[in-house]
């Protein structure tokens, strides 16, 4: 019964201005301060990346990017993302299914554990693997005896990346699947579908945009992670250098154009991520609604 009244109340919302909003001048001042702050802290750093990358012309830029070490850094970054993102997608779906579809003891605790990597410093995320697999580590002797190289090699980099990107997919999917409830799945099962069919034909289509959103954020972090990867990589040029690490090396060698050229690729990745993320929010806001605000 309150419903039609709320509808008739709608037009007031936009035009309330007279009664409860700031004066035109105060508004202008507040907006000016906010925009100035955003320009200095967000926009300028972004512009500087491209400005510095192209400071010596487009030739120097393309040359910097065609350097073999840079190429191998790009390849390694892609490889790491290609391995770690799917791993976390599988985990995210599986954890979301268990948590959203069932009631069991310790569910809240499990949800908290999944968020844990977000509150750990990236350096510590790398450190824990050094303590495990390093020469003085718990498994160090055993690994050495069996000739398995984890630290300062691709497996270590992947592990550290998986650690820092661990929560992304799961924490998008859990609230979304909880919100959607079990009705659709129960209907599918009652119609004779088995578990996998239900998942493929009912659950997955329901959460696909939320899943994509999670993958997007997960991928951005996986390709851009610095601290954790830096600790486990050993910084071997052409071998264990990811793009962010390569940026550091070039920068420390005073190769500004090279550093910023690689950085510009990463910044473009960030921009593409932001654009896709915004498009997803605009188009499928309701279907990824549970994700707003992280």
């Amino acid at each position, binding site marked *: *019964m*309150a419903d*039609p*009244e709320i*509808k*008739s*109340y709608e*037009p*007031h919302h*936009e*035009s*309330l201005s*007279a*009664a409860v909003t700031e004066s035109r001048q105060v508004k202008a001042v507040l907006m000016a301060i906010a925009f100035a702050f955003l320009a200095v802290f967000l926009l300028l750093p972004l512009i500087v990346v491209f400005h510095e990358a192209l400071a010596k012309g487009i030739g120097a830029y393309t040359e910097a990017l065609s350097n073999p070490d840079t190429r191998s850094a790009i390849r390694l970054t892609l490889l790491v993302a290609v391995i770690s993102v799917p791993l976390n997608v599988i985990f995210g779906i599986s954890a979301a299914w268990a948590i959203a579809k069932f009631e069991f003891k310790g569910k809240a605790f499990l949800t908290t554990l999944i968020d844990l990597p977000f509150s750990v410093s990236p350096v510590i995320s790398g450190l824990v693997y050094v303590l495990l697999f390093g020469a003085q580590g718990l498994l160090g002797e055993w690994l050495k005896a069996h000739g398995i190289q984890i630290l300062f090699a691709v497996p270590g980099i992947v592990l550290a990346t998986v650690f820092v990107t661990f929560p992304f997919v799961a924490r998008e999917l859990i609230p979304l699947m909880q919100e959607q409830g079990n009705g659709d799945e129960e209907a599918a099962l009652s119609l004779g579908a088995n578990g996998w069919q239900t998942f493929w034909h009912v659950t997955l289509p329901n959460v696909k945009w939320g899943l994509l959103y999670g993958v997007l954020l997960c991928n951005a972090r996986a390709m851009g992670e610095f601290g954790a990867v830096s600790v486990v990589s050993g910084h071997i040029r052409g071998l264990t250098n990811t793009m962010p690490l390569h940026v550091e090396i070039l920068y420390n060698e005073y190769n500004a154009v090279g550093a910023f050229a690689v950085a510009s690729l990463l910044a473009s990745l960030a921009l593409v991520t932001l654009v896709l993320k915004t498009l997803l929010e605009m188009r499928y806001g309701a279907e990824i609604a549970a994700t707003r605000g992280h």
Partner: protein
Amino acid sequence: MEVRVVNVRKEFERFPALHDVSLDIRSGELIALLGPSGSGKTTLLRLIAGLERPTKGAIFFGDEDASQKSIQERNVGFVFQHYALFRHMTVADNIGFGLKVRHGAARPSASEIRRRASELLDLVQLSGLEKRYPAQLSGGQRQRVALARAMAIEPKVLLLDEPFGALDAQVRRELRRWLREIHDATGHTTVFVTHDQEEALELADRVVVMSQGRIEQVGSADEIYDMPNSPFVYSFIGESSSLPVKVDNGEIWLADRPIGLPASNAASGEALLYFRPHDVELLDGCSGCIAGTVAASRRVAGTRRVELEIGGERQRVEIELPVDHPAAQKSRVAFRPRRWKLFPAS
């Protein structure tokens, strides 16, 4: 405080919500703005409060032109549909808020504010809940706190937007009686908005019926119910039946027959005849009456409602019969409205 609304027009982004509305509210009166959603009743209330500014026209509090004043200066008590209590303040702090935000000498001392708050809590029968937070109250209790908060500033006018809209039926009836009592005890000029006619007719001294941004009729419950002055009021308040008729020679004709109702003042031509289903006189023979075949019949509490098909056009009207009336399916019933009104055909 008497309130006068003079030729007020309100547009929202060119869309007119109120067309040239005028209304005199007497001092100490309890008045209801009644209408369907979109009729402009809430807009009118918010204009009186100063939450909106009129596009045209003026609103007077006594002799003062209130439209020149900001909402803060108007000193109106407004009770919002969803109460709009301050969640982070206790009940006592909510009620005292209006006094606490005053400046300088106008602000009472802290102990005086506390005293006033507990006095008002007594009035709304919530003593002892001073330290509670809104989240810890029931819907009805929140409503009372909202009213106490509005009254704390000793408002010139008390305005209530759908005061009982969010409550369940039982609490609603209770609070309705209670609001009437409070009004009689304090004598504030009070305007409330509702879409529930029962609430408006039972509670208000006068009812303002609104539709599509216009005032249709202003009057007491009896006037509104017994003498509706428009087809809208006829159909919106209570139940009504209507028939297309013709006026000729000071008589009302249904198809080719006069129905025995005089219409000496009405202009000749097409018209609509309105009457209440229960306000009819049943006749045996039919010379100068309305007659029809019973198409459907249902039992409504102490009476029986029948739907009659009338004339070749098979117009349907509803009338009320005593339960023991012999009219069954397909039998013919003849009647004549006891009280009725003609409106020009649109």
